[in-house]
C-alpha cells in the first residue's frame, strides 16, 4: 500500500487573554469549557475532564459512576507555549494519534491557539491480524479512512 502522508486536521482560535492565562485555562481549567456532552466517551454521563499537568501526565474523563476513561497522555509539557498529546480516547495506546497545541502571543494581551491532530498514517500500516483485533469504534473507521486516503 502506498503510505502517502495524510493531511493533519488543523484548527486555530484567537482569544483575548494573555499567553500564560490562555495555556492555564486550556489545561488546568479544561473542565470548565470542554464540550463533554458532545465530545467524550460517556456522552451525557460524562462528568469531568482532567489534565494531569506534567510530562507523562494522563488526560482522562470521569463518568457519573466515577469510572475513569483515558483520552491520552501528555508527551511534551512546555508551558505556556506548547502541549503535545498522544490521543486515543476509548482505545488502546497503540492506536494513538498525536495532538499538538501551540500558544502564541499575538497583539498585546491576545493569544493564538493552534491545534494539529496528526499521525493518521500509522493507522493505515497495520498487518491484517492486528487490524482484525482492533475492529471496533471510530479508530477502526479512521484506519480505514487512512487506508482510503492513502490510495
Amino acid at each position, binding site marked *: 500500500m502506498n503510505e502517502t502522508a495524510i493531511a493533519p486536521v488543523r484548527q486555530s*482560535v484567537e482569544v483575548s487573554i494573555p499567553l500564560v492565562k490562555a495555556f492555564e485555562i*486550556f489545561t488546568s481549567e479544561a473542565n470548565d469549557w470542554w464540550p463533554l456532552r458532545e465530545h467524550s466517551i460517556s456522552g451525557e454521563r460524562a462528568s469531568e475532564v482532567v489534565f494531569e499537568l506534567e510530562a507523562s501526565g494522563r488526560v482522562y474523563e470521569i463518568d457519573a459512576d466515577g469510572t475513569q476513561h483515558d483520552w491520552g497522555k501528555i508527551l511534551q509539557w512546555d508551558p505556556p507555549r506548547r502541549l503535545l498529546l498522544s490521543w486515543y480516547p476509548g482505545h488502546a495506546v497503540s492506536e494513538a494519534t498525536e495532538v499538538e497545541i501551540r500558544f502564541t502571543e499575538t497583539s498585546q494581551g491576545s493569544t493564538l491557539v493552534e*491545534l494539529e491532530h496528526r499521525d493518521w498514517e500509522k493507522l493505515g500500516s497495520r498487518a491484517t491480524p492486528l487490524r482484525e483485533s482492533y475492529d471496533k469504534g471510530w479508530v477502526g*473507521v479512521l484506519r480505514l479512512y487512512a487506508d482510503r486516503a492513502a490510495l
Partner: protein
Amino acid sequence: MTYGTVIEALADPTRRKVFESLRQGPRSVGDIAKEVPVSRPAVSQHLKVLRGAGLVTDQAQGTKRIYRADQKGLSDLRAYLDGYWKDSLSSFAEHANKKGKR
C-alpha cells in the same frame, strides 16, 4: 450527522471487508463474494448499507452491476473530525474571553 452513518456502516467487520475489497478497484457482487466469507445476498445487503452511507456507488455495466468506493462518505468523516476540534476550540475561546473581561 452523516458521519454517524459512516461510522455505523464501517463498524461491522464483514461490511468493512466488503468496503476494503473495493480498494483494489471496481467490482461486481460476485467478485466481492469471492473475497469475503459471506453469501452473495449478504454482500448485496452490505453494499446497500455502504451505499446509504455514501461509501460506495454503483453503475450498471451490461448485465452486471459494478460497485466502486465513493469518497463522499470519507469526506463526511473528515468534516466530522474538523468539526470536533472546531467545537472544542470555540468552546474554549468563549470561556477564555469571558474570563478575560472579568
